[in-house]
C-alpha cells in the first residue's frame, strides 16, 4: 500500500432498493490505491448488488460513490475503462484461443495492436503458456484458466480489479499461486477488490469488510477484526457476525 493513501473507491450511503427490499443499505467505505480489499458476506448479504453498482452496471437508488474518481451515476463508461473484472462464472471465451481472447479484451479496452502484441508476449511468457497460446481456452485446466483470466482482467493496467470468488473450486496449490499474482498486482499499484468464501484468503487482505443483511457490519484489517471480536481466526469472526443473518441469497 502506498503511504499517501490515495482513495480509489469512495462510497457514501450507497443504497439499492428493489421495490420494498433494500439489497444494499447505506454502504459507506473507502478503498485505497494498491490495497487488497476483501469484500465478504453471507449468501444474499448484498455483495453482488453492491459490486454491480461499483462497476457501473447497476444504478444506485440513493447515496453516492466514486470509482477511480468517476461518478457511479454519470460516468459509468469511464468507470468501466478504469477497472478490470473477473468472476468464477464468467472469465474468458472458451471457444476462442488464448491469443484470440487476449486480442479481444485488449481491443475492447482500446489498446493499440502494437501494445497488445507487446503485452501479450509478456503475459504468455510469464504464465509459461507458449505452447498453449493457439489452443482453445476450453482445453486448459481450471487453475490455468483462472490465472489467465486474472492476467487478462489486468491486461489494460486498470486502476482497480474486481474479483468475484476467483478461486472457487481451484486446487490448493493453484489457489495460492493465484494469490501470489494478486499480491504482485497490488505491489504494482493496482487496487484489488475481492470476494471469497475461503476465510484463509480473508487473512491475505489488507482490510476486510463483512456484509450482513445489506449492511456493512464490520470493516478493519484481519488482525483488527480478530481483536475486536476476540476471535482466533477470520472464520470465527465471520460466523459471529453472519450467523444471525435473516436473509438468504
Amino acid at each position: 500500500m502506498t503511504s499517501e493513501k490515495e482513495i480509489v473507491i469512495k462510497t457514501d450511503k450507497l443504497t439499492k432498493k428493489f421495490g420494498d427490499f433494500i439489497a444494499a443499505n447505506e454502504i459507506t467505505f473507502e478503498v485505497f490505491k494498491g490495497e487488497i480489499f476483501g469484500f465478504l458476506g453471507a449468501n444474499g448479504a448484498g455483495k453482488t448488488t453492491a459490486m454491480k453498482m461499483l462497476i457501473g452496471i447497476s444504478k444506485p437508488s440513493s447515496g453516492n460513490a466514486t470509482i477511480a474518481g468517476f461518478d457511479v451515476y454519470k460516468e459509468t463508461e469511464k468507470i468501466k475503462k478504469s477497472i478490470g473484472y473477473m468472476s468464477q462464472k464468467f472469465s474468458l471465451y472458451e471457444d476462442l484461443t488464448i491469443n484470440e481472447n487476449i486480442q479481444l479484451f485488449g481491443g475492447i479496452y482500446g489498446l493499440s495492436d502494437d501494445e497488445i502484441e507487446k503485452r501479450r508476449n509478456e503475459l504468455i511468457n510469464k504464465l509459461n503458456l507458449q505452447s498453449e497460446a493457439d489452443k482453445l481456452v476450453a482445453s486448459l485446466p481450471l487453475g490455468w484458466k483462472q490465472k489467465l483470466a486474472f492476467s487478462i482482467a489486468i491486461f489494460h493496467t486498470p486502476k482497480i480489479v474486481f474479483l468475484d470468488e476467483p478461486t472457487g473450486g481451484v486446487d490448493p496449490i493453484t489457489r495460492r499461486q493465484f494469490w501470489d499474482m494478486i499480491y504482485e498486482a497490488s505491489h504494482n499499484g493496482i487496487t484489488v477488490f475481492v470476494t471469497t468464501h475461503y476465510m484463509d484468503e480473508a487473512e491475505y487482505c489488507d482490510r476486510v469488510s463483512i456484509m450482513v443483511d445489506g449492511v456493512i457490519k464490520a470493516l478493519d484489517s484481519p488482525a483488527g477484526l480478530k481483536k475486536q471480536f476476540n476471535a482466533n481466526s477470520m472464520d470465527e469472526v465471520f460466523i459471529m457476525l453472519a450467523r444471525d443473518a435473516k436473509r438468504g441469497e
Partner: protein
Amino acid sequence: MNAIEVNNITKTYSAKKNFVTAVNDVSFSVAEGELFGLIGPDGSGKTSIFRILTTVLLADKGTAKVMNLDVVKNYTSIRNMIGYMPGRFSLYQDLTVEENLNFFATIFNTTIQENYELVADIYKQLEPFKTRRAGKLSGGMKQKLALSCALIHKPKILFLDEPTTGVDPVSRKEFWEMLKRLKAQGISILVSTPYMDEANLCDRIALIQTGKILEIDTPQNIVNRFEKNLYAVKSKRMFNLLNDLRAYSKTESCFSFGQYHHLVLNEEHPDMNELKSYLKDHTELEITQIKPNIEDRFMQLMRK
C-alpha cells in the same frame, strides 16, 4: 456388506481430438452407515464418479456396486434406493417448494406424509416458503430443498455432489450438521467437496486430483502421514516473508495459510536459530511448530 464398492473404474471423454481421462483406475469402498468424502478440486473426476455410481453414466472400464447391486445390470433397483443431489441445482424452478417435494415423492411411489420425519428437520425451515417457486429461493434454501427432495423416498444411500460449493461458512456449517444427523439415522453418505476443511467432518476420505485417488483413510491417519516437521511462520510483512522463506536454502516448500505461512524444511532436525538469523530483518517474527492439516497433506501429495 459395503454400501458402495468401486473397482478400477476408468472414464474417458473425447471432444474432437482431445481425450480427457476424467477418472483413472479409481477404487474405493464405503461401509454401510459411513460418511465418506471425496475431496478434490474442480476437474478431479468427482462428478464423473457420482454419475457412474448413480447409474446415469457408464464407465469405460471397471465395476461398481451400490448396496451390492451392479451399477450396469441392476440400475433400476439402485435408482429406487438412492438419493442424489447433483452439483448443479436440478429441481424444477417453475414449481413451488411443495410441488417439487410432492413430485419427487410421487415418482418414488410415496408421499410427503409417509417419510416426513426424515425431512422434517430440514423441511420445516422451508415450510414458510412452501408456495414460493424453487427458482425464486435463496442459495441456502435451494440447497435445503434439494436435500429434502433427495431424502423424501427414504434412501439407503445419499450421493451429495458438492453440496456446499459457493455457500458461505455459516450455511456450510449448518449443512454439515444436517449430514451428521442423517448419518445418525443409519443413512450411508458419499459427499464431495473442494473445501479441504470439511474433510475432517467425514469418517473417511479419498483425496482426489486429476482423476487419480492420492490417498484414502480417516482424516487423522491422512494428516499423520505428513511425517515432516511443519512450522507456522508469521511476521509483519507477509509477502516479503513468503519470498524470503522460499529463497531459504533449506526450504522444501512454503505456502500461505491465512495468517501464517506453512514451512517445511528439508532437514530432520533443523537449526531454528539459523532460520531466525536468516530472517533477522523481519519484525514481529513468530515461528511455531504445528500439526499439519488435510490441505498440507494434499499439497504434499500433489507435489510428488
